[in-house]
């Protein structure tokens, strides 16, 4: 215990504390993109992110948003995004917020707009839609099952049921549908980074960020 002696206007006050005193000084720390992304997941805001791997996954993830109503969220989200070190565009598309790095490779963005057709309704889970339907749309060929590794906790609700109705979808639209039907998830597509974007242009990683910052990612190479 330490007692602090303060003298103010001739009155002496003793304060008891449970700790030793400290009196350093300094400035504030900027927010990370991950903090914004996890904040969207924590608040149950449907959203998708396209950015470099380091930007998506580095930093802490304890923040939130006080509202998920688009008009209330718009100025708050834009202000937080504008304060990030990574320049991002912000757009609300069909009820899903899209945050995209302004230096995202054009080839990657083109892949996300590539069209795929579901010839029958797909009744699955978050996991099966991500691992198979989205992967097939990106690879433009059938993909089998899963080789999985890593940490998978109950915080990431990969077993939530998803129904994808028959129709034409872009890859982005498929991902949007997942986060619209499974609140609390944010989709992401990441690339190794501007310096390596060209050499690794046939590889990308996509997945979801869950409340609390847990994530599941699928890495695809040999993309057409």
């Amino acid at each position: 215990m330490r007692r602090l002696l303060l003298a103010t206007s001739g009155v002496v006050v003793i304060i008891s504390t449970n700790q030793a005193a400290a009196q350093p000084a300094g400035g504030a720390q900027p927010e990370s993109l991950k903090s914004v992304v996890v904040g969207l997941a924590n608040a149950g805001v449907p959203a998708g992110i396209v950015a470099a791997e380091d930007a998506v996954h580095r930093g802490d993830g304890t923040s939130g948003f006080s509202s998920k109503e688009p008009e209330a969220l718009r100025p708050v989200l834009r202000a937080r995004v504008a304060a990030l070190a990574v320049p991002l565009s912000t757009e609300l598309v069909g009820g899903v917020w899209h945050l995209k790095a302004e230096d995202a490779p054009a080839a990657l963005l083109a892949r996300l707009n590539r069209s795929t057709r579901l010839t029958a309704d797909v009744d699955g889970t978050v996991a099966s839609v991500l691992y198979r339907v989205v992967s097939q749309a990106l690879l433009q060929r059938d993909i089998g099952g899963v080789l999985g590794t890593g940490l998978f906790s109950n915080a990431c609700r990969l077993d939530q049921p998803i129904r994808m109705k028959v129709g034409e979808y872009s890859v982005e639209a498929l991902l949007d549908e997942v986060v619209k039907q499974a609140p609390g998830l944010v989709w992401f597509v990441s690339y190794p980074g501007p310096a390596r974007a060209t050499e690794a242009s046939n590889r990308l990683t996509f997945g979801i960020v869950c409340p609390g910052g847990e994530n599941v990612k699928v890495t695809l190479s040999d993309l057409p």
Partner: protein
Amino acid sequence: MIPSRLAAIAVGLAVIAPSVVAAQSMSFSVYTAPSAANGSVTVESTVLDYSTGCSHWNYATTAKIYSPSNRSATSTSNGLSAYTSLSFDSEFGTYTTATTGTYNCSCIFGSAAGFGGGQQIQVPRPTNIELTGSGSLGGTPNGCSGPPRYFKYRDYQVKDQNNAAISRSMGITETFSNASPNCFGVALVEGGGATNGQGQFRDYLWLCDAPGCNGGGSCTLTRTQTFSADGQSLSPSFAQTYTCSNVTVQE
């Protein structure tokens, strides 16, 4: 409610203001409760005003955190509590946290007075990893349409450079290098998450619905797996070998 480990510490002092005849007791307890988890140091500052004989108003409380290199986070709230956090940003060692505040007091004719206190917290750098258990699991892993070819787990403890277990929640990621081609014809899926509060986590490994293994097919995928905790690469790395019937992991 104040946690038991922060049991109230009240100290009273008779204070005589120049124009006040009766004695007043001015007593504050200042609690600065830092913690380190999920990539950040956080501090919860709580102040209890046990003073008697004077009116106090217009409280403002500030919580502060300083990293070893003096990066900082500060947050001020009206009232007698405050909260702030500062991400590690790959900086480990001794963090300093502090609580300061001001209020106005009737016994000094409404002038401002203050209180303060602080505490340090150690944030060890994650350096090593130790296998503490392993085995096979039943059930169907996520994304599989039926029983897997195998479904295994490995339990780990994260340690510091002195090989002491780190007891805090840490973000865990894994990276792979030297990977051979994916002949299974499956999606490669990774889960990233966090350790529990004791610095322990479970790594799952499974394979299901692999076209490359159907009809008597065979496939072997090898790669080097390296874990990171709070952004720090952990030693050792592991050599993974996946086949159609088993997965082995070696240092």
